[in-house]
């Protein structure tokens, strides 16, 4: 990881490091999607993103959460921590960042590049397998780290930049 704009996932004691950040801890009930969407609405408004871009950010955040609930926790109750902020990095410019932390024993072991490039076959449609593709398509950077006690996912959306088709993981 080593992104300087993101602190430890646990909430920092000092106030100043917290300005502009939103941190949410919850159990991965599907209705919590609504809370995530309002966090996205607030942060994309702060970032000055238009409606379409804001919706794309919402899609990525929604899909990542849905995957953690369905695959990491297998549909059972499980704790998820979400942190979002707008960072300013000299190198890459301003970006909207979302960090997801779960405490599941199931670790993602797939390949994001493959998921990103999966194209549906119209003759042989299958209802699943869309989530990761959407995440990779709409985020400027998507990254996963397996931790000793769970997973850390990070989504980055550049601010003031065109849409990005790549997935850098």
């Amino acid at each position: 990881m080593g992104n300087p704009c993101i602190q430890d996932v646990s909430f920092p004691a000092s106030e100043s490091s917290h300005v502009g950040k939103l941190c949410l801890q919850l159990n991965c009930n599907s209705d919590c999607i609504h809370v995530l969407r309002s966090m996205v609405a607030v942060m994309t408004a702060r970032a000055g993103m238009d409606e379409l871009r804001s919706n794309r950010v919402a899609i990525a955040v929604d899909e990542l959460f849905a995957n953690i609930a369905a695959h990491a926790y297998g549909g059972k109750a499980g704790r998820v921590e979400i942190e979002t902020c707008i960072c300013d990095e000299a190198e890459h410019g301003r970006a909207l960042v979302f960090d997801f932390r779960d405490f599941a024993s199931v670790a993602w072991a797939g390949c994001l590049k493959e998921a990103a490039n999966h194209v549906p076959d119209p003759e042989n449609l299958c209802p699943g397998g869309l989530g990761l593709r959407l995440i990779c398509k709409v985020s400027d950077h998507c990254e996963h780290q397996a931790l000793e006690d769970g997973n850390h996912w990070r989504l980055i959306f550049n601010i003031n930049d065109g849409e990005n088709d790549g997935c850098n993981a």
Partner: protein
Amino acid sequence: MDVTLNFEREDRDDTHTLLRIKGDVTIHTSTRLREQLKPLFTTKMQEVHVALDHVDFMDSSGIATLVEGLQWSRLTGGRFVLSGLKDNVKDVFSLAKLDTVFDIEDSTAA
């Protein structure tokens, strides 16, 4: 702020039915959409029309449910039409490369 999905069904006749959806289609609500959608596909039904004019947000679980609808319609031999997609919902279909796979009408016929 509504966390539920609402449905309104209008049968034009025995062979044509319209399902209006109101709300967000997400993992939280897509199983309810599936429950409403599935029984509509019978061999005598010639057209199942889903009106999305009042859907502000749809994620891949919603799209997956509509893909199932497409499959059911292929099995029963009827038409499956979507209409009234808002720009952001359209965007998700096209990101998923499924905008050309579905039969999508611009506005919802009454």
